[in-house]
């Protein structure tokens, strides 16, 4: 209150704001750190050892996938000698040989990029399809919502590995990383779309969305600038775990014999399938690629769990 105005005194019936301790409620702390969902999540995540363990594993897997020759000089497919068939470890061949006499270690190292590429392409594809479809359904509502969600129900009604089996059985002649990724991703998007839709429905009620529309922003623009950034967190969570699922799906398809062709691509699923007949005599040929596969999948699942705990307050409560 400025000194110019005369001060009017009133009898007080309640304590001064400062006396009652209510001032602390309204006080703005100047030195407070900036905070939003993502910063909070990062602060939560970086304190947790699980995050660093999974991150280190994933960085290592990415390096192996990008630069396999840093880890092995042995070509995975070319220098196979039947004289080495099912042979034990030798200098330079630490994990022994497959039935065909190929180097197990080298095949595992070179198989990393196959698994990772399929995982990443499928994830990108499901995010793209799920986000676009879920956002349009949730934000525009009405008949578009009903139509898109019923289509989603139909795709959801076919377990995506089975659908991929059918697609791959048809595309037997031209199987490559793109075809297998499309085959998996084409049926894996409905869960992403459903989650994004329900999140968009929630965010759409917010005041800032109404403000944006009231200020005359176009609907599509409001959706992309205000609704989407606030509803994307659950998609990130499900996609990290979905990446692990896609890697498993590729290995399963290759294991079933409708995945990637054995002679062109190194795939852990193929190696496991090739080793299964010698389970009694030479189990390690099967165990090693299985370990590589499981550890890769585990890394992404761990990361997904850590990210979920950080982004989803409900999950944190249960932790």
């Amino acid at each position: 209150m400025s000194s110019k105005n005369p001060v009017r005194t009133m009898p007080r019936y309640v304590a001064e704001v400062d006396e009652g301790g209510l001032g602390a409620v309204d006080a703005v702390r100047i030195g407070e750190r900036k905070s939003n969902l993502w910063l909070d999540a990062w602060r939560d995540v970086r304190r947790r050892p699980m995050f660093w363990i999974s991150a280190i594993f994933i960085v290592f897997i990415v390096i192996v996938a990008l630069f396999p020759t840093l880890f092995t000089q042995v070509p995975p497919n070319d220098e196979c000698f039947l004289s080495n068939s099912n042979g034990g470890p030798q200098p330079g061949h630490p994990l022994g040989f497959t039935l065909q006499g190929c180097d197990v270690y080298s095949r595992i190292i070179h198989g990393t990029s196959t698994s990772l590429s399929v995982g990443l392409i499928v994830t990108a594809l499901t995010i793209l399809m799920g986000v676009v479809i879920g956002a349009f359904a949730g934000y525009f509502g009405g008949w578009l919502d009903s139509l898109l969600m019923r289509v989603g129900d139909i795709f959801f009604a076919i377990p995506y590995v089975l659908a991929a089996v059918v697609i791959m059985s048809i595309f037997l002649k031209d199987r490559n990383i793109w075809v297998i990724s499309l085959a998996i991703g084409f049926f894996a998007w409905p869960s992403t779309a459903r989650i994004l839709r329900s999140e968009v429905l929630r965010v759409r009620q917010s005041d800032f969305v109404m403000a944006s529309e009231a200020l005359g922003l176009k609907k599509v623009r409001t959706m992309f600038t205000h609704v989407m950034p606030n509803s994307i967190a659950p998609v990130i969570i499900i996609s990290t775990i979905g990446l692990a699922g896609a890697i498993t799906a590729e290995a399963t398809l290759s294991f079933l014999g409708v995945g990637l062709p054995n002679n062109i691509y190194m795939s852990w699923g193929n190696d496991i399938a090739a080793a299964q007949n010698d389970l009694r005599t030479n189990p390690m040929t099967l165990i090693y690629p299985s370990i590589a596969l499981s550890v890769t999948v585990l890394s992404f699942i761990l990361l997904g769990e850590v990210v979920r705990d950080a982004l989803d307050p409900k999950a944190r409560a249960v932790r």
Partner: protein
Amino acid sequence: MTAYVIRRLLQALPVFLGSTFLIYTMVFALPGDPILALFGDKTPTPEQLAALQERFHLDQPFLARYFIYLGDLLQGNLGTTFSGQSVNEILARTFPNTLRLALLAILIQLVFGVAFGLIAGLRKGGFFDHATLLVSLVLISMPVFVLAFVAQYFFGIQLGWFRPTVGPGAPWSDLILPAIVLSALNFAFVLRLTRASVIETRQQDFVRMAAGKGLSSRRIIPVHVLRNSLIPVTTNLAADFGILIVGATVTEGIFNVPGVGAELFKAIRRHDSPEVVSIVTILVVIYVLVNLGIDLLYGVLDPRIRYVK
């Protein structure tokens, strides 16, 4: 309830039509000769080609062909394999085994998943909780065929506790190991879901109320906590069943259980596309029906759901 049942039935109809149409379209509307595509990497003789073109009514327009196919499907005519076996006969022979395996697996996953999840949830943060979380994480990370081989090698071959492979006419005891493998992933999911659900339910007002009016925990936990925690587990059964279908294909194939899954497994490896498509269609139809059943069950268990549009 009647309105709810009718609404669910009406919702299931387009899903049934849509999913069969989708599979049919994938096979017959893709670029290239669909009959040649059915043969995969094999080359058919002209006689085979002509017979197949006749059988799939390729002279008719596409939609008409779909309805002929749907009519066959509804009448229970599922076509034949390359070797001329009727898919119906194969299914009739193999289905009982798959049913036994699936029932056993569902029993294992529910009994152990709910029991372990309940204990873990009640003792949140304790040793048992951490141990089961770790085990479930490992189970979730292991693809079912890896788990199958590991189990087959250690329990079947090394330790000799179970027969490593099952044959035709096997007793229930032989199915225990494949059933454990098949249920492992769902066991982990059921465990985690029950645990989270128990933790959440225990904080609900009605549980505090029950404790407040002096009920013993011997009554609160089974009646108030567990029953309400089972609702999300029931809803998730549909997703579990999808995992079970894919898992059964791999598990039966590896353990040589003479079931539908093993038949599909062999058909995939033989590249016998007609058989693959027939079996996948049947499995999808079963999946849609099971989903419907679980939805109806959900309406019975949780009356709130009947009124949500």
